C-alpha cells in the first residue's frame, strides 16, 4: 500500500472517530432532552394532581359555580398536557394508567357535581359525596405516585444517558488512539525500515560494491525509490565497467606505444652508434686519403723541382719545358687533392679550427710575396694597403687559404691592369678585399660562384686551371670562422671579392 494512501487513511480514521463522538453526543443530548421533558411533564402532572385535590376539597366545602369552573379549567389543562405528551414506550403503561385515572377523576367529579343538582341535602347525600371525594382523592394520589414514577424514570434515563455518553467517548477515544497509534506504527516501520535498507545500500555502493542490490519489493514510494536506486546502481555499474574497459584498452594502447617507443629508441640509439662509428671511420678515411694521395705527389713535385733547379744537371730547353708542365700539373693535382679533402672534411663536419693570435698584416705581406712571380710574369700591378700591424685571433691557415684563393683568382682572370689588396679594421670587424681589373662576371653567373665544381665557361680561356672548389671551400671556411664572403663584379670591368670576419673568433659581427 502506498504511504500516501496510508496517511490519507489515517486522516480519514481520525475524522470518522471524531464524527462518531459528535453523533453520540448529539444522540445523548436528545435522550436527555426527552428525559427532561418527561420529568417536566411528571412535575406538572404532580402539581395539577395536587391542585385538583385542593380544588375538589374547595368545591366539596363550597359547591359553587366558581369552584366547579376552576376545577374543570384545571382538569382541562391537565387533559391537554396529557394528550400532548409523547413519551417512550416503556413509560407508556404509566401514562395510560394516568390517562385512565384522569378520565376517572372527571367522571367522579361529574357525579359530585350531579349530587349537588338535587338541592336537597340529606345525610345520605353527604355521605355519598364524602365517598366520591375520597375516591377522587385516591385517584389523584394514584396519579401523583404515577407522576413520581415518571419523574424517577426520567431521572434514571438521564443518568443512563450520561453514563452511556462517557462510556462511548471513552471507547471511541481508545479506539482512535489505538487506530492512530497502530497506523503510525505501521507507517513508521514501513518507512523507516526500507529507508534504513536503502541507507545501507548507499553505504555499500559508496564503498565501491556496485553489485549490491537494495531489492525492496514494497510497492510504496520507498519501494519505487529503492528500485530506481538499484536501476541507477546497475547503470552506474555498467558505465563503470564500460569505462574500465575503455581505460584498459587505453592502457594497453599506451603500453604498446611505450614498447614501440622503447624499440624505436633502441633502434635510434643503435643507428646513432652506427652513425658515430661511420663518422669516425669517415674522419679516419679522409685523413688517410689525404696522406696516401699526397705522399706520391710529394715525390713527383719534389723531383721535378730539384731537376728544374738544376740540382741534377743541366737541362735542355725542351726538357725544362716538359718538366715545367709536369710540375704545373703536379701542383694542380695537389691543389685539387687539398680542396677535395677540405670539402670532405667540411661536409663530414671534420674540419677543425686552430684558433690563435697572429699578425694579419704580416700574413698579407706573405700572400703578396707568394704571388710576386705570377704577377710579374703577367705584368700586373699588385698594390696592397694594410695597417702596419693588425693582431687577429682566428685560424691563420684557413684565413690565408681564403685570401690566397681570392688573389689567385684575380691573377688568373686579369690580363692587364691592377690587383688591389685592402685590409680595414673597424669596430672589431676586419674587411679584406681583393679588387681586380679582370674579365668580370656576368650578373646571371654570380650566384654560381660559391657552388662546388662550378666553373663559369668563358670563351678563349680553356687553359685556365682550377678545381671549381676554391670559392666553395672559401665560403664554407669563412662560415666556420664566423665570416662572410661577398662579391661585386661588372662584366668586362673587373671584380671585387670581400671577406669580412670578427677580429676575435667567436665574437658576433654587427
Amino acid at each position, binding site marked *: 500500500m502506498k504511504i500516501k494512501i496510508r496517511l490519507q487513511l489515517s486522516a480519514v480514521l481520525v475524522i470518522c472517530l471524531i464524527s462518531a463522538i459528535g453523533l453520540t453526543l448529539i444522540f445523548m443530548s436528545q435522550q436527555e432532552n426527552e428525559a427532561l421533558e418527561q420529568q417536566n411533564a411528571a412535575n406538572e402532572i404532580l402539581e395539577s394532581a395536587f391542585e385538583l385535590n385542593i380544588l375538589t376539597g374547595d368545591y366539596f366545602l363550597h359547591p359553587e359555580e366558581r369552584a366547579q369552573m376552576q376545577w374543570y379549567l384545571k382538569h382541562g389543562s391537565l387533559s391537554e398536557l396529557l394528550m400532548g405528551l409523547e413519551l417512550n414506550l416503556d413509560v407508556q403503561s404509566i401514562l395510560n394508567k394516568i390517562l385512565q385515572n384522569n378520565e376517572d377523576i372527571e367522571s367522579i367529579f361529574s357525579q359530585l357535581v350531579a349530587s349537588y343538582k338535587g338541592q336537597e341535602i340529606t345525610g345520605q347525600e353527604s355521605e355519598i359525596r364524602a365517598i366520591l371525594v375520597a375516591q377522587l382523592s385516591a385517584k389523584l394520589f394514584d396519579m401523583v405516585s404515577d407522576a413520581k414514577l415518571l419523574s424517577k424514570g426520567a431521572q434514571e434515563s438521564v443518568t443512563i444517558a450520561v453514563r452511556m455518553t462517557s462510556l462511548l467517548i471513552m471507547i471511541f477515544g481508545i479506539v482512535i488512539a489505538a487506530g492512530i497509534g497502530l497506523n503510525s506504527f505501521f507507517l513508521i516501520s514501513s518507512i523507516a525500515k526500507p529507508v534504513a535498507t536503502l541507507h545501507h545500500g548507499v553505504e555499500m555502493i559508496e564503498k565501491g560494491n556496485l553489485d549490491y542490490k537494495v531489492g525492496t519489493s514494497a510497492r510504496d514510494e520507498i519501494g519505487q525509490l529503492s528500485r530506481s536506486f538499484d536501476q541507477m546502481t546497475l547503470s552506474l555499474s555498467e558505465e563503470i565497467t564500460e569505462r574500465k574497459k575503455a581505460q584498459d584498452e587505453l592502457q594497453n594502447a599506451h603500453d604498446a606505444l611505450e614498447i614501440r617507443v622503447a624499440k624505436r629508441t633502441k633502434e635510434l640509439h643503435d643507428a646513432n652508434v652506427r652513425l658515430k662509428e661511420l663518422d669516425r671511420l669517415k674522419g679516419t678515411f679522409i685523413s688517410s686519403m689525404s696522406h696516401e694521395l699526397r*705522399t*706520391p705527389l*710529394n*715525390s713527383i713535385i*719534389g723531383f721535378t*723541382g*730539384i731537376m728544374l733547379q738544376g740540382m741534377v744537371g743541366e737541362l735542355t730547353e725542351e726538357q725544362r719545358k716538359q718538366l715545367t708542365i709536369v710540375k704545373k700539373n703536379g701542383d694542380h693535382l695537389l691543389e685539387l687533392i687539398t680542396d677535395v679533402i677540405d670539402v670532405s672534411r667540411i661536409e663530414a663536419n671534420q*674540419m*677543425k679550427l686552430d684558433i690563435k693570435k697572429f699578425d694579419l698584416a704580416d700574413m698579407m705581406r706573405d700572400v703578396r710575396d707568394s704571388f710576386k712571380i705570377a704577377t710579374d710574369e703577367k705584368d700586373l700591378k699588385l698594390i696592397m694597403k694594410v695597417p702596419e700591424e693588425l693582431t687577429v685571433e682566428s685560424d691563420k691557415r684557413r684565413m690565408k687559404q681564403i685570401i690566397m684563393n681570392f688573389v689567385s683568382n684575380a691573377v688568373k682572370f686579369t690580363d692587364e691592369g691592377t690587383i688591389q689588396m685592402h685590409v680595414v679594421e673597424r669596430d672589431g670587424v676586419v674587411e679584406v678585399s681583393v679588387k681586380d681589373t679582370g674579365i668580370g662576371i656576368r650578373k646571371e653567373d654570380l650566384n654560381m660562384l660559391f657552388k662546388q665544381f662550378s666553373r663559369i665557361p668563358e670563351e678563349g680561356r680553356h687553359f685556365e686551371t682550377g678545381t671549381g672548389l676554391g670559392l666553395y671551400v672559401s665560403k664554407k671556411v669563412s662560415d666556420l670562422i664566423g665570416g662572410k664572403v661577398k662579391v661585386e663584379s661588372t662584366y668586362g670591368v673587373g671584380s671585387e671579392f670581400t671577406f669580412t670576419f670578427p677580429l676575435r673568433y667567436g665574437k658576433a659581427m654587427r
Partner: protein
Amino acid sequence: MKTILLVEDNGSNMYLITFILEKNGYNVLQAFRGEEGVKIALKEKLDLILMDIQLPDIDGFEATKRIRASDAPKMPIIAITSYAMAGDEEKALRLGFTGYLRKPINPTTFLQEIEKYLPVVAV
C-alpha cells in the same frame, strides 16, 4: 760535415730528401721505421733529425718522446709530414718537436729551414 738522421718510410721521398741533403753537403743516416730511428738517434752523434710523423711501427710523436726521454733534450727534431690537420703543428711542437715542415718540400726553402735549426759552428 753535419750528420742528419732522416726517418721516412716512403722510399721515393727518402731518396729525394737524401739527394737534396747530400747534394748540399750533409751526411745523411736513414731509418725507415720509428724504432730503428730511435736506435740510431741514441747510438750516433747527430746534428739534426728529420722525422716523418706517420710511420709503420711507432709514430713520429712516440719516437721523438723516446729520444727526448734519453739524453738528447736539445737535439733539433724537425717534423716533416703531409699529415696536415688543424692543430697538428701545435701538437708536434708541444710534444717535443723543434720545428715543423710541410710536404711537398720546396728544395730552396727546405734547405733554408734546415739551416735555421742547425747550431752555428765556428769554422
